[in-house]
């Protein structure tokens, strides 16, 4: 249960809101680099943190993320002409460069310098690891570029996708730190999904549906450890990383690529679910890459030409009641991503947490909310930089380990839980 005023603080991320100020402390993923494939390619509408923006790539390959609307009469610059170092409004020819600075107002004498007085709001847009990242906070407080491992490995080793999720970011993100649902909702995929199957750890998962949890604060967020019984009195640990505000990394299985998510608010009732897979030490195989394109693992198939999942609320997520009854899928919805998204969207655009009844295995969620609220308070009252901005908080890995019963995962997994260049992730 969460009081309404706290729910509002966490779920509202528009300009001027405390939660919005928190998100505006970080570099966040804005677009896939492939959405702006060429210089002078068509611009792309982007809505982030309840702000309507336009992304474009100019003649010299510089990326711009600017207010979507022309300062003159409010026309959407999505109709603009991307030409000769700027984006020109087709209505009266006003032209803007990648910083949002107006560089031409054809109706005014050049000598008047009128155009220098016009500037659209803009944010930096920087490519790293196949993702275009933006920082929407005060320029004076712009942090160093993000150093998530998935964005730093050679591109042959990673696969990144995004999908529209039609609910508030928090209820989507909370699914990422709720390890206890896996043994139910996703149990069919452990044996059938090509990106999961075959790992020894799957056997521990399927044999023990009642894991014991340990939640430990980390510098950037939380370690959420799920413990199951293994052989000879040992424990099989799956350790999820959550880094503030909305990064999660799922424990790996065997030598499969490791994966995780970012949940980024579009507005208060929609978010982008970013999904990444990477292997720290080898290129993804053609089969793995094809499986990801086919919507396996944590990825989805799309409505063609969009980032909306093919199974979505308009078609009841293609629910298959026969598959549900026969146990091929637990909920009747196919695929891990849409199994999660269908249930999270069913809560409504912003779930009323005053009605929920959490239990003690939900402590990961409770602690995440606690840390987010504390970070918002510290930021608003004392301008304290929130956890997760520091790049050292971003150099983390999830892990799966088999440990003797007396070894705490945080100590035993000390090396496994941080990035070690050239060393594979710790996985069972």
């Amino acid at each position: 249960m969460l009081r309404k005023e706290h729910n509002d603080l966490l779920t509202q991320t528009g300009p001027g809101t405390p939660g919005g100020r928190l998100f505006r402390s970080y570099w966040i993923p804005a677009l896939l680099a492939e959405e702006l494939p060429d210089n002078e390619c068509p611009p792309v509408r982007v809505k982030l943190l309840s702000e309507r923006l336009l992304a474009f790539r100019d003649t010299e390959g510089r990326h711009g993320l600017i207010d979507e609307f022309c300062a003159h009469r409010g026309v959407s610059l999505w109709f603009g002409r991307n030409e000769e170092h700027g984006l020109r409004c087709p209505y009266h020819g006003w032209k803007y460069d990648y910083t949002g600075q107006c560089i031409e107002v054809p109706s005014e004498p050049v000598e008047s310098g009128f155009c220098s007085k016009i500037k659209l709001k803009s944010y930096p847009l920087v490519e790293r690891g196949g993702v275009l990242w933006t920082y929407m906070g005060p320029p004076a407080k712009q942090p160093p570029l993000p150093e998530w491992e998935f964005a730093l490995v050679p591109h042959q080793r990673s696969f990144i996708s995004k999908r529209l999720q039609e609910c508030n970011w928090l209820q989507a993100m909370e699914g990422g730190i709720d390890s206890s649902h896996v043994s139910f909702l996703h149990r069919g995929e452990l044996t059938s999904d090509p990106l999961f199957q075959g790992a020894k750890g799957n056997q521990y998962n399927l044999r023990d549906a009642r894991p014991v949890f340990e939640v430990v604060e980390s510098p950037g967020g939380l370690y959420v450890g799920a413990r199951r019984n293994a052989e000879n009195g040992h424990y099989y640990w799956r350790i999820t990383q959550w880094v503030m505000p909305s990064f999660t990394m799922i424990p790996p299985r065997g030598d499969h690529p490791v994966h995780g998510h970012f949940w980024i608010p579009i507005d208060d009732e929609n978010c982008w679910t970013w999904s990444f897979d990477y292997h720290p030490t080898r290129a993804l195989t053609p089969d793995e890459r094809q499986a990801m394109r086919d919507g396996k693992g944590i990825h989805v198939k799309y409505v063609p030409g969009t980032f909306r999942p093919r199974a979505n609320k308009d078609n009841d997520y293609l629910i298959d009641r026969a598959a549900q009854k026969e146990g091929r899928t637990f909920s009747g919805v196919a695929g891990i991503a849409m199994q999660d998204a269908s249930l999270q969207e069913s809560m409504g655009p912003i779930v009323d947490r005053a009605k929920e009844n959490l239990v003690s295995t939900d402590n990961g969620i409770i602690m995440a909310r606690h840390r987010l609220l504390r970070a918002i308070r510290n930021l608003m009252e004392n301008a304290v930089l929130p956890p997760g901005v520091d790049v050292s908080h971003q150099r983390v890995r999830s892990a799966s380990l088999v440990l003797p019963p007396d070894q705490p995962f945080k100590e035993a997994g000390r090396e496994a839980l941080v990035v070690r260049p050239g060393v594979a992730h710790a996985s069972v």
Partner: protein
Amino acid sequence: MHSESARASSAAEARFRIDDPNSRPRLVKVVALDRPSQAVVERLAQHQCSGATFLIASAFAVEPQGGGQLSMQNRLSDLAGHPKQLLDEINGADLLVMVATAGEDASAAAMIGEACSRKHVMTSALVLGSGAATDAALAKTLAQLRPWALMLVAASSDDYIADMLSALRA
């Protein structure tokens, strides 16, 4: 043409979610296992306007009794120092939360955990001061709690307990 899922998950439809209470109050016991935790629990009890009961395990005899059996007759005490029978306290409880401090002795967890196990009462343990403690101190306390807690949380700030109890409707 909207599907049933699209219509049902809209903001407009959210207004029609039934507003009656969907749960009854839970019976939660919060037990401090050491002196620093006792101070935290006492402060919490002053501000907590809820159904949680706050207890202290400092009076525990933690050694196994004859034959290696743990006695269930040992006592807790309430915050006023009145003795309480362990089994009486956990009878009918929905959840027992053990509160410990990193680096302190949490051996009382064994007795409480054993009793809860026999009575099928869910247990959680909360280790406070994890931010300031050394890894070794934290590990020692976690090791004492691990066999007896189905949920184990290491928190850096004392105010997490209040947030947790509120979230659990305690």
